[in-house]
């Protein structure tokens, strides 16, 4: 979903907005009134079996899923951005390779393995899922924050020093705002991955939309799988789009568009 240039024909300008709206309505209907879709899913449900998942409210599953992703991504963002800031300061430069390795390990370790390892320590439920999502989300944010903070226009940094901004002022008033679009792109990537990955949290009894998919897999009910998958997919697509819009707006304000 891209934004068409200002001089594009009306239809081209309205189309992305219309598509966005349609997807939001579809998602809302799937979550709030799943019964409406019974005729759609009926053909792929097992004969005589349930078509619509009703064991728990899809709204509460969605909220719990989103809450889990938000909490894990917030933690990843804080840790990854802080780390990136520290290792791009002169004093922290020596730690750059080390922090790279750590975040890389976070990404290479499969979330399923993290879950399996974390359950004995943290027990079933939300804990292991949060840990897995947190570790898995670090790398994209860290890498993007590093890129954003190390590719700033040198003249602007020189001017910021020459103007008499202190180190702290340079970071908050110049470096972070200018790196923001790139950092946000990392957060977006991380969020979308986390939205999908969170579904496996249901294998260790975290309340996520994965519950619907797993129930479908266990009972060979394709309708459940599709229902759960569709909701997660739509959340991911809409979130991705919203983040892209924010990044664009920021980039445009900074004359980088």
């Amino acid at each position, binding site marked *: 979903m891209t934004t068409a240039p200002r001089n594009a024909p009306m239809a081209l300008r309205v189309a992305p907005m219309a598509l966005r709206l349609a997807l939001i309505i579809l998602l809302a209907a799937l979550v709030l009134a799943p019964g409406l879709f019974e005729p759609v899913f009926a053909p792929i449900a097992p004969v005589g079996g349930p078509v619509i998942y009703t064991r728990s409210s899809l709204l509460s599953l969605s909220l719990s899923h989103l809450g889990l992703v938000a909490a894990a991504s917030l933690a990843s963002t804080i840790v990854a951005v802080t780390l990136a800031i520290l290792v791009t300061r002169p004093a922290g430069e020596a730690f750059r390779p080390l922090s790279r390795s750590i975040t890389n390990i976070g990404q290479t370790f499969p979330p399923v393995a993290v879950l399996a390892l974390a359950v004995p320590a943290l027990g079933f439920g939300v804990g292991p899922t949060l840990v897995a999502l947190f570790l898995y989300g670090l790398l994209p944010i860290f890498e993007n924050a590093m890129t954003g903070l190390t590719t700033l226009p040198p*003249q*602007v940094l020189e001017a910021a020093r020459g*103007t*008499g901004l202190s*180190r702290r*002022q340079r970071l908050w008033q110049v470096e972070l*705002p*200018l790196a923001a679009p790139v950092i946000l792109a990392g957060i977006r990537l991380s969020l979308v991955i986390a939205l999908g990955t969170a579904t496996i949290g249901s294998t260790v009894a975290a309340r996520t939309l994965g519950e619907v998919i797993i129930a479908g897999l266990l009972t060979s009910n394709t309708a459940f799988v599709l229902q759960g998958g569709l909701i997660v997919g739509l959340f991911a697509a809409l979130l991705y789009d919203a983040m892209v819009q924010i990044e664009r707006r920021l980039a445009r*304000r*900074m004359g980088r568009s």
Partner: protein
Amino acid sequence: MIEIDRLTRLYDGKPACDAVSMTIETGTITAIVGTSGSGKTTLLRMINRLVEPSSGEVRINGTPTHSEKPHLLRRRIGYAIQGHGLFPHHTVGRNIGAVPRLLGWPKDRIAARVDELLTLFSMDPSEFRDRFPAELSGGQQQRVGVARALASRPDLLLMDEPFGALDPIIRTRAQDDLRQIQRHLGSTILIVTHDMDEAIRLADRIAVMDAGKLVQYGTPAEIIAHPATPFVAEMVGEADRPLRLLALLQVSELAESGPADGPEIAPDATLRDALSACLWSGRESLPVRGTTQRVTLEAIRSRAGAHA
């Protein structure tokens, strides 16, 4: 008054700037000229401590620059660089007001100063104040960059090749504007350039640097007429010397009574322009506008020859 006292900067044991001493009078423009690698930028950057000197010191109105924190020092010294370095995420007004904001000026005083400077640089405040740098032309960005450097009425303005990124026509205009604004505000300016023409056009005093050393420091006329080393002579350009010398002098200096025909020349035009007009129109003398006087080819010739 700015005193630079045996200022040295070593890189890997080799001096990039080697015991340079010079005194800059308040309210003048001084140009530091040299080829790349001559240490001119290092010298400039040591003054606001973007580069810390290995030895030596700088005193501004008697106070050594190492007696306060670098970022506080820099708020008292304007700094303009090639390619302007404007903050792309701040409006023109916020860019110009950057240092006053750091100094804690009240909002209305900053706003008034921003409008005053924009007007001074022939940019309509209501039109430009709220624009972003990316929406300006190269010449306008550069003017905003200089306006930002002047905003807090600094003791000293440092400029590092400020016009380097501009095309020749806009560049000449920017130089004229700078000269005019400097006279208007009485600012003290230290400008680094590799362009001797720019130095001669702008500066009251020129410092020529070569391989980290200050090889000559004098008025443009002295530098042109008596280059201290072969390097300075080369920077001035052997063949252009008489013309450069004439370009420093005004027609009114040689005006004498007597008749002359043809188009008039302004009394504040340079002798170089007068020579050019004589040669082009094949005349021996030109009438000076607003007077009954004239300037003759003969007088110009003997003035160019009187350098020694």
